[in-house]
Structures are given as C-alpha cells and as structure tokens.
C-alpha cells in the first residue's frame, strides 16, 4: 500500500476512535480515490474540524474531551498497515518558499501538498456537498 494511503487509513482510524470515545456520531465514507494521496484531503480535514466543533460543544456543556492515548502500533495492526512507513527523518522536506519566491511555477508539485492549507495555515477548504458526516441528533 502506498505511503499516503497508509497514512490516510491510520488517521481515519484515529478519528473514528476519538469519535467513539467521546460519543460523537461520525460516519466515515470509504475513500474511492484510486491514486496515492498526501495522507489527507479536504474531506479528511473536514472530518477533523467536525470533531473539533463537536468536542468544543461538549466542553461548553461541561464534558471534558476524552483522549485515551492511542498507540500507533495498535492502530497499524488494526488497519493491517505495515508497522514502519519509511519517512526520512531529515531531507525531502516539503520546502516552504519565501513569499517573494512563491509562484505556482516555483513550487515543485511533488514536494508540496496539493491543498493550499498546508502552506497557508488554517485555511479550511469548503466542505463538499457529498460529505457524509451525520450530525448528532
């Protein structure tokens, strides 16, 4: 399995467990994208923001967020992913150009994410209409 897909699978499992531990209803649609990905996408990010909103809602009602402390080793086993995903400790970093260098042509497509939020900070992509997150009743 390609690295990005593995990362996606693990992160999805973490989101599911956060939702379960905090009684948040989260329906995760199976990803049908065929190619490799960066491990996340606007849809995955929208699920994270949804969880954050739900946790904040609960905190306002006096419920503390529960994080039981997930082990990545267990998650790798649960998702049938290889234990070690080769990632360089250094080198191959997604290079952040100075703002003066920043043109679409100057950013190698394989070293920076497709989505703008990685370079620009907390910029949320619009939630697609087909988003399958069911709000709590």
């Amino acid at each position, binding site marked *: 399995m390609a690295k990005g897909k*593995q*990362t996606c699978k*693990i*992160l999805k499992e*973490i*989101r599911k*467990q*956060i939702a379960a531990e905090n009684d948040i209803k989260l329906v995760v649609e199976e990803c049908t994208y065929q190619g490799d990905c960066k*491990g*996340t996408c606007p849809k995955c*990010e929208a699920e*994270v923001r949804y*969880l*954050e909103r739900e*946790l904040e809602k609960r905190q306002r009602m006096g419920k503390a*967020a529960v*994080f*039981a*402390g*997930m*082990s*990545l080793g267990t*998650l*790798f086993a649960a998702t049938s992913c290889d*234990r*070690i*995903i080769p*990632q*360089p*400790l*250094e*080198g*191959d*970093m*997604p*290079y*952040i*150009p*100075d*703002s003066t260098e920043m043109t679409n042509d100057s950013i190698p497509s394989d070293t920076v994410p497709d989505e703008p*939020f*990685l370079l620009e*900070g*907390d910029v949320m992509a619009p939630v697609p209409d087909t988003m399958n997150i069911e709000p709590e009743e």
Partner: protein
Amino acid sequence: MMKARIFGIDRHRLTTDGDGVTTLVTFNGCPLRCKYCLNKTSWDMTKGREYTPEMLYEEVKIDQLYFLATHGGVTFGGGEPLLQKEFIKAFRALCGPQWQIVMETSLNVPFEVVQEMDAVVNGYIVDIKDVNPDIYFAYTGKENALVLSNLEWILRHGDANRVRVRVPHIPEFNTDDDVAKSVEILKRMGGVDIEEFTYVIR
C-alpha cells in the same frame, strides 16, 4: 518581534519522530557542514519563510486532535533547532504541556542551551555521526567534545529513554568497526535507545 526562518513543515509523520502523530518543523541555521547533508537548504539563511512562534502555532495546531489522541506533537529539526531556544520556549508557552516536543539535534551547542531547554522538551533524537573525534571532524568540519558532554548530561539527567541516539554508517568516513565502537561507548554513557542506520547518498 521574535522570528525564525523555517524551510519545511511536514505533517502526519507516523512512527518516525516518536510514538504518536508528529509534525516535523525544520529551521534554517546549522553549526555543522556535513558532507552528505540532506537539508543543505538549512545552510542558507535567506531560504524558507520567517515565522513567529504564534504563526507557527496557528499553522500546526490544525493537527492538535491527532497529537492529543496519540501522544504526539511537534519535532523540531533543521538545521539545528537548539539554536532557536527562545522561539521554541515561546512555542511551548503557546501549545501548552500536552504536546510532545522533540528535538532532532546534533547537540553541538553550548551546554547552557541544553540545560535550559531540557525543561522545555520531552525528547531528543540525536544523530551522533561518529564518536571518534577525527571521523566526526572529517565529516562535519567541527569537533564533537560538546556533543559527547551534552549527550552524557541528558542521558544522566532524567530518563534515558527520552533520548534516541542514531549512529550512522557513513560511506567513506567510518567503518562497521567504527560504528560498533561508537555504540559501545554510547551504551557505557547510559544510552538505551540506540539505532544504527546507513546514510543514503544522493
């Protein structure tokens, strides 16, 4: 306003920089000039982008849920992150105590810096290069006396398990015997998490 130049931010790293989901943040600026450095961008202080601790925190907190759920956080590398102690201290004040902050460092910095930062960070990943000072000098252009004394201090001062010492096989600079000698000395110094690996030359 406090600023540091950062040339890379890599999200969603699994098992590489610690136990949980981590984001690697790499600073420009390094005291070493390693022959096979993979991040030579870090030598150029005009590359990358200037960040304040607040800007960086705003950017990386996008993954806070993953950090909290998996006991992960931010790994600072470079370049040499310990050259940015004030920035990292300010960042810690912003992110609070729950995120794990790990230094991916050469430890080739003054002892006072290590001593001061030990209260701020949760762990270290130390690429030791080679314990032999001649090999170290040939490979990095610097001496390693500070590296060894700093490492010995952090291994003895607190839980040695918070320190992963990486010992590279460096083509054309050290031999398998040299690496074995380094590992033996590191164990005697109190190292428990020692990892051998081989540099990939590109």
